[in-house]
């Protein structure tokens, strides 16, 4: 008998359910309870970088928007630095920019929005330059374990073409499911995305 390894096993995931807002966005559930709330606004007046709006929908296998979905995003600041001690890259840290936010979809339309800044390019530990991207985590009723994906930017064609993660996506036609489309509204950049959980245009999800 070899020595036992004695690792513990990860706790199993369960769906967040239809009432996830009670715990994570109580104002959407219809009540006010905490003194301080987390939100879909990542920027403060002092945040450096280009202000952007991210907006999109998550669609099910019938093409219908999920109206009870919750998204969290995690991103670097404009200098490409994550606000976390494990990021020891050279970009300047901004204490006020946490880099994380959560947003629920509108109960009628399914639209999810975030107010943030466009992240800078990230240098990974192997010294490779990664295209600017936003990490996305998706939970909802009917989703048994949170889904991980990324949003890249349509106006970063050269960086996207060299990105080490996008280049792992096969067939290449699926890479476009990770690109948010830039437009302007009232002089401000809006990046639109659609996340397809299932079907012909299914979004690429990652086992991270």
């Amino acid at each position, binding site marked *: 008998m070899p020595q036992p390894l004695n*690792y513990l096993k990860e706790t199993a995931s*369960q769906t967040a359910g239809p009432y996830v807002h009670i715990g994570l966005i109580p104002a959407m559930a219809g009540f006010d309870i905490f003194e301080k709330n987390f939100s879909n606004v990542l920027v403060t007046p002092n945040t450096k970088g280009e202000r952007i709006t991210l907006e999109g929908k998550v669609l099910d296998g019938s093409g219908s928007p999920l109206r009870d979905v919750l998204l969290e995003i995690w991103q670097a600041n404009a200098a490409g630095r994550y606000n976390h001690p*494990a990021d020891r*890259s050279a970009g300047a840290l901004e204490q006020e920019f946490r880099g994380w936010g959560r947003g629920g979809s509108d109960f009628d339309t399914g639209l999810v929005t975030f107010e943030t800044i466009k992240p800078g390019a990230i240098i990974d530990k192997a010294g490779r330059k990664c295209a600017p991207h936003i990490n996305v*985590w998706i939970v909802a009723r009917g*989703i048994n374990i949170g889904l991980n994906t990324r949003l890249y930017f349509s106006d970063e064609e050269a960086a996207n073409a060299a990105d080490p*993660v996008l280049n792992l996506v096969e067939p290449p036609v699926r890479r476009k499911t990770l690109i948010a489309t830039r437009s302007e509204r009232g002089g401000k950049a809006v990046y639109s995305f659609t996340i397809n959980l299932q079907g012909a245009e299914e979004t690429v999800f990652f086992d991270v």
Partner: protein
Amino acid sequence: MNAQAPALRDPRLNRPEPFTPPLGDGGFFQRDRSIHPPAHAPGYKSSVLRSPRQSLLSIENSVSEITGPVFGHNDLGPLDNDLIRNYAKDGDPVGERIIVHGRVLDETGRGVPNTLVEFWQANAGGRYRHKKDTYLAPIDPNFGGCGRALTDDTGYYYFRTVKPGPYPWRNFVNSWRPAHIHFSVFGSGFAQRLITQMYFEGDPLIPVCPILTTIPDKDALDRLVAPLDLNASTPFDSLAYRFDIVLRGQRSTYFENRTAGN
């Protein structure tokens, strides 16, 4: 489950030199998806249209996944871990008073300190304070049903609440959820992010729940069932349940790739 897992042997002690480390960047242990529910679990009907049909694309952990949001006591209010008081209007909520406590650990048995744990639940009658819940059991005017806590230096957390009731839901005609509390946990990196549900020892609805039984591994299912913990209860006040949560382990960094020029 044994929360005080024996300290792991230092893997460097037993290996012939030289050796190749499994991964040089301190990423997380690969997730064992055989213990998690599959995306497509037809007995839980909502999963049918909401599950990807393509394979997940496995990517090595980079700085995007190893890092994650950091929270502090400034983010919380003083009553955030007391569901008996944090929405009290003119008295205490109705129901069985309980303490829920435990540790957030990683797969190596180390406590995960200073991590955010969030929880939400129905009231004692199985009714959620949510505009979309129309179950006929009444709202409790003194119960909100949510809270949050930061783990301490050892990964320990606790909160006080009332035991939630079971409730019916539209899956099969006669489907009822066991009593449960939803948990959201962050860990130290975004790849450890986890949402799960805690159940209560002895609940006869557990083996017939279409959501809980999406879990293919019996032991993994049992680990979601919190035992009664009389040692942690407060006499003449509250019973206690123990719920430990295990997040993915983190690899040690033996050798790092050096950026060219370093």
